[in-house]
């Protein structure tokens, strides 16, 4: 096989779901010894297209060619036979099985016998580390992804499709993955990577194919592309990649957290003596490596998790012992986007209207015992129009929407309740550029109307551009709260890994960080 000989060609491939055209006349060229990036906004049909190569969906029109021959991929089994392997965004692994058992799945009995030897060979070749006897439910996301890659390689794939592989990885894990991708490319394998992250596209791919709303826009050589040119192809118009940080006159603290300590599900201290406050018209970013107490902090503020000690003061009330209902009645809204996006906040099988009604039912309950679906539908329509949600109708189940649209619905609904404090965690997780900027814009509008925002984020560049202050957490402790406009990435990085602790420096001046001078908490209550 030649270095860049054609592996798979798609010609005018079309797929529709009901009345929604997910892919329309797509043409694509996948070659051996090359990394092709598939770029497009949420809902532009990237995953659908690749699912047709892996046999999950069957195209309604068009033709797929494998090494120049027309082929018909009717099932995953056919895809196997053509040595096409897909690493899905939601891993296709059986949690209850060990790594080796997962790899043995779908292998003929004879090949499955020496699977341990095969695993070892592939791990040695590309530098993977997996324990064949480890159960999947004991693995972290990075290990699961490694297992997925080893699995398709063991199955003999030489066309690998990776669907948003970096969405759940840390920076170091991403770098490791890219080294593997490059090694596989050197080996002559054809690789397709689906991603939203432009810097990754530029780093790892050779060519980029761009989709927009299910249509094929074009393919460019990566070396001729820039972030801006790719974004414009993806979005279809000129875009501004700068994030605004409107300055708003600071009001009195809206939410104050004093000496808060929370335990996680296993009973370990997740948040340890944390102090901070949010003023009206201010956005406080929370940075920290994954799992250093962000989730527990959100849950505690929303009243979903009991606190060990400390206070949470809203106005002049301590809300730390209140129920979620009482807390949300005081205008504190929480939108937490978990890794699977749908887990918290929305009911996947219910329509957009019903999900909107889930939050506003209390108000209408006072007027009538029956659900006012007409008003719910109107509200849903307002959210759809204002935030540009792409959906067939207000009655579409939320799980049928793509990730970005799900997040818009969630945030839109929260804003509809007129909150004065918004707690939002990873609101742009897995979102494309356009949707992300729209979310930033929504948050900024809220900030300008005097709402206090706690923004738990992942991307330091974004937080430094968007937030007013950044609080860094390290193993549940506050490492310091810095001005986002003057902070440097290096400083934040040191704080995130615990090497720099500003609170220790401040303590010598006997002033505790995170406590406002014009606090609402009266001295005698402290």
């Amino acid at each position, binding site marked *: 096989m030649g270095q860049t000989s054609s592996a798979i060609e798609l010609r005018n491939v079309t797929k529709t*779901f009901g009345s929604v055209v997910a892919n329309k006349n797509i043409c694509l060229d996948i070659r051996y010894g090359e990394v092709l990036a598939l770029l497009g906004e949420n809902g532009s049909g990237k995953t659908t297209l690749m699912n047709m190569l892996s046999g999950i*969906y069957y195209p309604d029109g068009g033709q797929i060619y494998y090494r120049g021959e027309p082929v018909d991929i009717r099932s995953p089994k056919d895809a*196997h036979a053509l040595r096409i392997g897909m690493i899905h965004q939601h891993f*296709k692994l*059986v*949690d209850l*099985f060990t790594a080796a058992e997962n790899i043995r*799945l*779908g292998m003929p009995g004879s090949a499955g016998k020496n699977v341990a030897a095969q695993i070892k060979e592939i791990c040695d070749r590309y530098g993977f580390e997996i324990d064949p006897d480890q159960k999947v439910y004991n693995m972290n996301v990075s290990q699961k992804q490694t297992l997925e890659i080893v699995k398709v390689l063991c199955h003999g794939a030489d066309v690998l499709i990776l669907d948003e592989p970096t969405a759940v990885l840390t920076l170091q894990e991403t770098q490791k993955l890219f080294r593997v991708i490059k090694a596989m490319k050197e080996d002559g394998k054809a690789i397709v990577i689906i991603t939203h992250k432009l810097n990754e596209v530029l780093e790892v791919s050779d060519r980029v194919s761009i989709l927009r709303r299910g249509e094929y826009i074009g393919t460019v050589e990566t070396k001729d592309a820039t972030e801006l040119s790719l974004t414009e192809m993806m979005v279809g118009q000129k875009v501004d990649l700068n994030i605004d940080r409107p300055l708003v006159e600071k009001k009195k603290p809206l939410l104050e957290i004093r000496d808060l300590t929370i335990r996680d599900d296993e009973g370990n201290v997740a948040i340890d003596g944390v102090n901070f406050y949010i003023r009206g018209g201010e956005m406080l970013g929370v940075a920290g490596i994954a799992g250093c107490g962000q989730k527990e902090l959100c849950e505690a503020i929303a009243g979903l998790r009991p606190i060990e000690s400390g206070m949470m003061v809203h106005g002049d009330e301590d809300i730390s012992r209140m129920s979620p209902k009482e807390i949300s009645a005081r205008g504190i809204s929480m939108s937490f986007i978990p890794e699977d996006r749908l887990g918290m906040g929305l009911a996947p099988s219910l329509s957009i209207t019903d999900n909107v009604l889930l939050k506003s039912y209390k108000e209408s309950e006072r007027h009538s015992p029956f659900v006012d679906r007409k008003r719910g539908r109107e509200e849903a329509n307002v959210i759809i129009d204002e935030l540009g949600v792409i959906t067939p109708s207000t009655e579409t189940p939320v799980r*049928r929407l793509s990730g970005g649209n799900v997040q818009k619905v969630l945030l839109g609904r929260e804003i509809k309740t007129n909150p004065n404090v918004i707690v939002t965690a990873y609101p742009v997780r897995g979102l494309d550029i356009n949707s992300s900027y729209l979310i930033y814009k929504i948050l900024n509008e809220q900030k300008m109307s005097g709402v206090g925002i706690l923004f738990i984020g992942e991307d330091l560049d974004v937080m430094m551009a968007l937030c007013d202050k950044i609080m860094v957490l390290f193993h549940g402790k506050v490492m310091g709260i810095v001005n986002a406009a003057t902070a440097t990435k290096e400083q934040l990085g040191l704080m995130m890994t615990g090497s720099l602790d500003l609170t220790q420096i401040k303590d010598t001046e006997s002033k505790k960080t995170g406590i406002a001078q014009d606090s609402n908490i009266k001295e005698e209550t402290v």
Partner: protein
Amino acid sequence: MSFFQTLPALIQVAIAFGTVIMLGCCGEILTEKSGNLNLGIPGVMYLGGIASLTGVFFYERSTENPNGFVCILIATVCAFLAAALGGLIFSFLTTTLRANHNVTGLTLTIFGAGVANFFGGSLNKLAGGVGQISVATTSAAFRTVLFPFAGDLGVVGQLLFSHGFMVYAAILIAVAMQIFLSRSHRGLHLRAVGENPATADAAGINVSIYKYLSTCIGCGIAGLGGMYYVMDYTKGTWAHDGTIETLGWLAVALVIFTTWKPKNAIWGSYLFGMLYWMYLYIPGLSRNTQPLFKMLPYVVTIAVLIVISIHKKRENQPPASLGLPYFREER
């Protein structure tokens, strides 16, 4: 009479009922491992019971000297096929048409009981009245003591070795199923289908075929439980007392009790049989208090459910996609 004097008799009936429950339970474990939650087990046990009885009834009527082996063969094939047909109905509705498992299963139970009692009544009429059905050769063949040395071993021999062949066949089926599920490739594939059908599908495993086959074979095995009850316990007659249904529900409860492991069904079914009959051997019970003891197997099942829920050990949980229809293009 003290409890210990009556213990051998209790064990005897516990083994008889336990065998019915064990077969039903093993069939249901095989079915549930594919993700199909078949609550039609009592119904397919009914189907198995009546089909075997009908088959041998006509065979014994048609011939002068019925052969015991042929009787067993006819009964087994009839029972297995009729019950597997029930499984086929269930599979078609839930796997192909993606109907709700609970509703389909409960309907199948009602259907099976109705069909069986209708034909049972007809057989009684043909035979000349209730209790007049005579399949003496078959019943005798089923109840022939398999181990001739049983009589020489006293109480032990009587308890362990004086049963018909189905008691031992049931244990063999449970052992074979345990090995199949935990050691074989196809067992691994089946478990993958029940845990995560999308993953199994992506791995090139034909999800529908696994669901169909495991459900039909599972139902067939459960049907053998109904056959054993009719041929051995009631000696080849038909009664409208609903005992098969009770045993069927006990089998479904036992699946949970065993945490989906056939090896646990072997002792668990005898335990359920004992708990079921306990009320006869507890002195001083009145008609009013008997039902309290009859519910013991269910109480034990709830206790097991509570324990495994507290422990949260992943290996003891039901198959992850149990009761959920699978559609490849679902988004």
